[in-house]
């Protein structure tokens, strides 16, 4: 039994969700290898070699891996799989993993299992369905199990004390059917939404994009990330990548503060695994109060500045 973790990185840094995937891979038992494919990824290889639980790093470098296009990475993973015959192939359930692994699975003629939250045994996994309203325990009898791992459901692997060896693998020949043009990431000094310890989220109750400044001020005091409900995103208050929910990001921070969010099922799906949930809403009937540990029925335009002020003291 052995597992291949496909590392997500930008040639400079490892994406944190890979560490959660490594933890899941370790839980499966057996040897854990990591595949790093990129244009110039020596830094990332060095980073992974210190991660606990990784035995071997397979490195493939080629210009065609720019932008991590699935059309280019799939032949590489298939070649690596042919050489090492892993029993499991996994990656984080991020845009990268969700884009790539089903393609690999189809080529192997196996059914992949997406976004797992628990490993019962090497062939049985738990995942959420219907936006987290039900759990499905899946027994996967495929020869190779292809999995994506929900980051918030597994602790990140320790980034020190590991001693993985690295080995070069031959790059696959370029497929040349797709081209990566550009990326525009929203720049922010705040912590990343899915890995932040504290998340402050705003909904339609904020009434405008400008009013999100109230949340940014509060978040900065608490070193928190800022999220939003789909209603706020649809109304154009903030960009889509801030969306927490079934169709946005799944978060499970220590503390989740929902401001002016009524609590549609689709939003609850993305945040109900948070350790402590605080809700501020002026409507006492809002469904968000059903999942909240602490609810404050108040006008957010008064309550939020007061909270920020209190943190100043």
């Amino acid at each position, binding site marked *: 039994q052995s597992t291949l973790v496909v590392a997500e990185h930008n040639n400079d840094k490892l994406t944190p969700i890979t560490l959660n995937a490594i933890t899941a891979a370790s839980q499966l038992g057996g040897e854990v290898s990591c595949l790093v494919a990129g244009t110039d990824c020596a830094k990332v290889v060095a980073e992974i070699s210190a991660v606990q639980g990784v035995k071997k790093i397979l490195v493939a470098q080629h210009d065609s891996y720019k932008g991590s296009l699935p059309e280019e990475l799939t032949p590489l993973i298939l070649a690596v799989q042919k050489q090492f015959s892993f029993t499991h192939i996994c990656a984080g359930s991020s845009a990268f993993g969700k884009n790539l692994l089903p*393609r690999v699975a189809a080529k192997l003629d196996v059914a992949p299992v997406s976004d797992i939250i628990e490993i019962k045994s090497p062939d049985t996994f738990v995942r959420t369905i*219907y936006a987290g*309203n039900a759990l*499905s*325990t899946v027994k996967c*009898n495929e020869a190779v199990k292809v999995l994506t791992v929900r980051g918030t459901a597994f602790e990140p692997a320790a980034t020190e004390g590991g001693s993985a060896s690295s080995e070069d693998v031959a790059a696959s020949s370029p497929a040349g059917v797709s081209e990566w043009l550009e*990326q525009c990431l929203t720049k922010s000094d705040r912590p990343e939404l899915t890995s932040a310890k504290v998340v402050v989220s705003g909904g339609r109750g904020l009434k405008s994009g400008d009013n999100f400044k109230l949340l940014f001020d509060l978040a900065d005091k608490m070193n928190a990330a800022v999220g939003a409900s789909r209603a706020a995103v649809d109304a154009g208050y903030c960009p889509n*990548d801030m969306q927490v929910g079934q169709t946005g990001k799944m978060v499970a921070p220590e503390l989740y503060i929902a401001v002016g969010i009524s609590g549609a099922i689709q939003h609850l799906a993305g945040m109900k695994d948070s350790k402590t949930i605080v809700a501020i809403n002026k409507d006492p009937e809002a469904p968000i109060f059903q999942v909240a540990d602490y609810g404050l*029925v108040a006008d957010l335009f008064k309550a939020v500045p007061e909270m920020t002020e209190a943190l100043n003291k």
Partner: protein
Amino acid sequence: MNLTTQSAASQPIKVESVGFGWPLIGCAGRWLPSGASTGFTLKCFRRVPRVKVNVSSTMSGRVLVGVKRVIDYAVKIRVKPDNSGVVTDGVKHSMNPFCEIAVEEAVKLKEKKFIKEVVAVSCGPQQSQETIRTALAMGADRGIHVEVTGKEYENIGPLQISKIMAALAKKEDAQLVILGKQAIDDDCNQTGQMTAALLDWPQGTFASELTLEGDKIKVVREIDGGLETIKINMPAVVTADLRLNTPRYATLPNIMKAKKKKIANMKPADLGVDLTSRRRGRYRGRRSARREEGTVY
């Protein structure tokens, strides 16, 4: 969404508005009443020749759209007492919201004359035909119902569906397959990627903007932390994310028209697809509410 293409003089033309299928260039909304007496009949003031699209002659100009019948998003789901699945009897079903976005995008491409035909496909029991009808009422030209029932339907997953989609894409000589990025029932997010893999076509997943450029397609994708732009060769598979468009409502005349459109019926075996599934699921309900008390007034 803006569609940019090359005209004969290779001057980029922006298609600004489309009404009744006629592209109007630079004169959006210039429709004049034909006669003052009725005021109802509208005539195009200036018809512009069709926008020339560099779709190579070997291409069919056909788009295949997958539509899945799922439990309506507003329904609170219940798990069966024996944990064998979710209660579906007597529960309102609708088209998966992401599939609606996929249909809308395909119909828009047709209205802009980038493609000739939109074919809506659904796999499932008899009732899936209702979902196909909805797609037809939104503007799809015809439907294909791949009938899968009973135990077989309970066990199939994205792998089997993508085999059906890939076989149909070949059979219909489709140039583009548009699917929703995920279904709101199993939340798998796999079918598009797997269909692309089986066809050996490139994939543009989680699309929030599509631009056809000759025989290539530019896709702006939703990724963690922002957006990414890729350019892929056609034929290709695209999966729709939320911001791609806002699906239209089917109007009553269009619903009536849809009743006359054809839905072909076939079995997976007709396509040479084997439905053997090697995964089994058990289901558990989940508490949606955690605590009831503690609200401060």
